[in-house]
């Protein structure tokens, strides 16, 4: 395996491509997402999307934020050659919701809000609360891991260049 520091920078485009593919999938194929996680009722973009256009050695960052922000500017940026580098997501199951932000380069979680848990009243409640929180964090992490693994398998296959990329190009142009 490559040196970790070198690999981080050299291959951060994989995470950015994952987020770009994820936006495309969210927008065009919610049914597929439900096959990835059978408890999922919806996965949609939240209140922040950051794109970067690094074409011609210059870097341009486009940030779209706000609860009701339109994503037309984001699509326009994709048309100009940008990729998604940061994305806020809302993940819903039947009666619970998670919100978090993923950065493409690290796929670390920021601003992760999990469903409400009960109050901690005594020291004895803390252990139970840790286990409950760990379960809720695990649910969001596992969902992203599954999606990323599916993306990696797709990215490693001929289907990526022959089918997925042409479909993403069509989606961007619509």
């Amino acid at each position, binding site marked *: *395996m*490559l040196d*970790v520091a070198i*690999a*981080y920078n*050299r*291959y*951060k*485009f*994989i*995470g950015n*491509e*994952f987020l*770009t593919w994820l936006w495309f999938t969210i927008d065009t194929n919610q049914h597929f997402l439900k096959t990835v996680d059978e408890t999922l009722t919806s996965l949609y973009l939240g209140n922040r999307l950051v794109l970067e256009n690094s074409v011609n050695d210059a870097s341009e960052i486009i940030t779209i934020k706000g609860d009701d922000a339109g994503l037309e500017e984001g699509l326009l940026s*994709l*048309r*100009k*050659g940008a*990729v998604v580098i940061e994305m806020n997501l809302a993940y819903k199951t039947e009666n619970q919701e998670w*919100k*978090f932000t993923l950065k*493409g*380069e*690290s*796929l*670390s*979680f*920021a*601003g*992760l*809000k*999990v469903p409400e848990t009960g109050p*901690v009243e005594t020291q004895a409640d*803390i*252990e139970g*609360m*840790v*286990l409950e*929180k*760990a379960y809720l*964090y695990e649910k969001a*992490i596992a969902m992203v*891991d599954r999606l*990323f*693994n599916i993306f*990696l*398998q797709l*990215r*490693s296959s001929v289907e*990526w*260049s022959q089918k997925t*990329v042409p479909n*993403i*190009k069509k989606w*961007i142009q619509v």
Partner: protein
Amino acid sequence: MGILSSPVSITQYRVEGKLSEPILENVANGLKKNTVEDIDDQSSDKAIGWTCFNNPFSTDINQTPFLIGTHLVFSLRIDKKMIPSKIIQKHYTLEMTKKLKKSGRDFLSKTEKKEIKDHVIHLLNLRIPATPNIYDLIWNYESNTLWFFSNLKGANEELETLFTRSFNLKLIRLFPYTMAALTSPLSDVEKDALSQFTPTRFTES
């Protein structure tokens, strides 16, 4: 940032290697040997070490259980003294004036100036309390995974160093490349091909 806070940030790690038996005793020993030291009233400006989860100002590992369910749960504490540069400058100037008056000279050598500055910082560090920063972690020993509740670069780097020193195990940060290489279901051939990946262009060329 803590496990029970909201919202939280999480950096994922893979733990490389295995502790020898008895595991809990070895974890406890690793923690005890590297608990954070109290540097208030001392001239040190930084202290890094382990502390108890949900009781971060106690370093008595025997008093607070770190095993919750199948998770090992404890915290990294980084205590740092931050002296505003203007305060250093003020005391440095006052000390220089005193030294000049005492020596009867009208200038000080570079070495003397450095000695005065070091002395001033030493005295101020004795007077200023350290600011604690606490970062929780959950280590799932069975699955070799660890969640660190911060995305801060500095805190993550301190964690990686202290973890290896305490338990003689390596922490590998999970990001797209390491996830693909270490935790994904890709075949060996696919993993080899990964290093040949080049960025995709989603626009018509």
